[in-house]
């Protein structure tokens, strides 16, 4: 492996990891604050990608379709939390697994009902369609760098929200002691709605950002969901910082495994996860 190839794979890995973080952060946030294991989280990624495709073909503006998709995702999040997830707060993990599997079925059905089962794709927006030459023969697409930058900005915004704002204070308080937050007169159910909706929106934004890079197909959500599980478990369930570190780790390991060990590439992240759990059964950054 030459230096430039190594460098390109490293950026690829980081960029994939950042995208994973965007999805996994919602999963881990919802688990940490609300104690809900949402298997339908991957479906939100799929919904984001399909919405982006749908609006892009109608408006021809990537920015506009991204904004509309994010708003729709936010509304879906609020609706789902208010009607379904709310039923689960006092149930065990098994009921959560089941109800959210039911949601996966419904989202998959709606997707095939509304948008059909043919693979779709959208082209990279003109402004970002160029590539940056690295050496004489190698270059790197601008769009991928753009995605990485957006992910970093969103991660920073998330960090700021959680650590510096009043909402973030409530989220942290809700994580460590639910009852006490309620006793202090905070409307915890509204907090839950907000957290869940933000999680859904982050996953959908990841879907929107991936739309020009991947083919938009049925079942794309489930594949991502499993990758996010690995991230969340390695990082420690409920830990945003853990999810960030683990997402980058998984992104880089997965990318390099595909180059260096192609025969067992898809297994490598799971092996990594099993090894980490052997040493730290609750993940890297668990409390």
């Amino acid at each position: 492996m030459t230096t430039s190839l190594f460098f390109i794979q490293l950026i690829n890995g980081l960029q994939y990891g950042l995208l994973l973080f965007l999805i996994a952060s919602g999963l881990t946030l919802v688990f940490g604050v609300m104690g809900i294991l949402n298997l339908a989280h991957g479906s939100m990624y799929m919904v984001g990608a399909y919405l982006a495709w749908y609006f892009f073909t109608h408006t021809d503006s990537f920015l506009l379709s991204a904004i509309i998709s994010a708003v729709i995702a936010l509304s879906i999040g609020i609706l789902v939390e208010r009607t379904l997830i709310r039923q689960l707060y006092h149930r065990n993990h098994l009921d959560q697994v089941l109800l959210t599997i039911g949601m996966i079925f419904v989202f998959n059905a709606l997707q095939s009902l509304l948008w059909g089962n043919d693979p779709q794709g959208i082209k990279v927006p003109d402004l970002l369609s160029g590539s940056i030459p690295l050496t004489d023969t190698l270059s790197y697409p601008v769009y991928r760098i753009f995605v990485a930058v957006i992910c970093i900005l969103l991660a920073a915004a998330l960090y700021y929200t959680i650590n510096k704002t009043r909402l973030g204070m409530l989220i942290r308080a809700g994580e460590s002691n639910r009852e006490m937050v309620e006793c202090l007169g905070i409307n915890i159910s509204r907090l839950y709605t907000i957290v869940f909706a933000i999680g859904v929106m982050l996953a959908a934004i990841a879907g929107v950002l991936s739309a020009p890079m991947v083919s938009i197909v049925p079942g794309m959500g489930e594949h991502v969901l499993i990758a996010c599980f690995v991230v969340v478990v390695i990082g420690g369930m409920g830990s945003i910082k853990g999810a960030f570190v683990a997402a980058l780790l998984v992104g880089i390991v997965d990318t390099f495994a595909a180059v260096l060990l192609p025969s067992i590439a898809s297994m490598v992240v799971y092996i990594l996860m099993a090894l980490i759990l052997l040493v730290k059964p609750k993940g890297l950054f668990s409390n």
Partner: protein
Amino acid sequence: MLFQKRSERLFIWIFFPLMLMMPLFLDGNIFYINKLSSILIFALFVMSLDYLVGRCGLITLGHAMFYGLGGYIFYIIAPQNEAVNFWVYTFYICVISAAIALIVGFLVLRTSGIYMIMITLAIAQMFFYYFSDSMEFGGIDGVFLYLKPETSFLGIKMFDLDNPTHFYYLCLFSLFNTLVFFKVIMASKFGRVVDATRENPERTTALGYNVFVFRLASYVIASALGAYAGYLFSMQYGFVNPSMLSWQTSGTALVMLILGGMGSIYGAILGTFAYEGLHYFFEHLTEHWMLFMGSAIILMVILLKKGIAGYIEKLLEKRS
């Protein structure tokens, strides 16, 4: 008496005689006989999951791994060009999958709750990708098993596996034996301790039992039976493919289990039949059957807290 609950006796006296007569009603309709056989096989698989989830309180999202392994182990160890003995290979498959379960269980049982759900899922995915990426096992298409085993036992040929009706009775026979087997375990002293480890692991430890050993033993038993179900499934259609060990298979089995009601021995059977019935019904109604299936699952979680079995028991209690 082995079946103490009235609902259990009622179920067994209705279900098994009905199933015994089913081929007469179906009058040699091979499609439905095969369909019923595969439902019975999956019911056996769900029953083994019920033992883990309902009895031991160990939630796994990777049980399908053993379902698939049952088929793949057979493909690996059986010679390609001669029919082997069914019973001998049943024994081999159970022993090998039990050995794998011993190692896997040793790792996953170190964790509990949500972490166990995740790590069982991850290990199952590992096997899924191993089989779906390898050329040797036909990748995502899987492999064919051209020869069905013969089933002679002490010189007597019991079932002809190429005959769908014979195969159906083999499945029914297996399901019945599994049910009795689990019932015997649960009624034994071992089963009592397992119940205790579910209800209160700390206190069970204080009483001098090694909780980990009991859980590991249960994991091994359930996994071996799960592999047996997978072995039967691969016999039926003569192929093994990675979708058998996908997480969707594990998820479906969990859905069936909750639908039927976990912890009660017959809930697994009820749930499998109810799920397959709903699936069949919606699939013929519309191509978007998943919409209805998903809504049905969601409604069920919200409304039926203990599954169909729980509902039946409530009805019986009211009457007596």
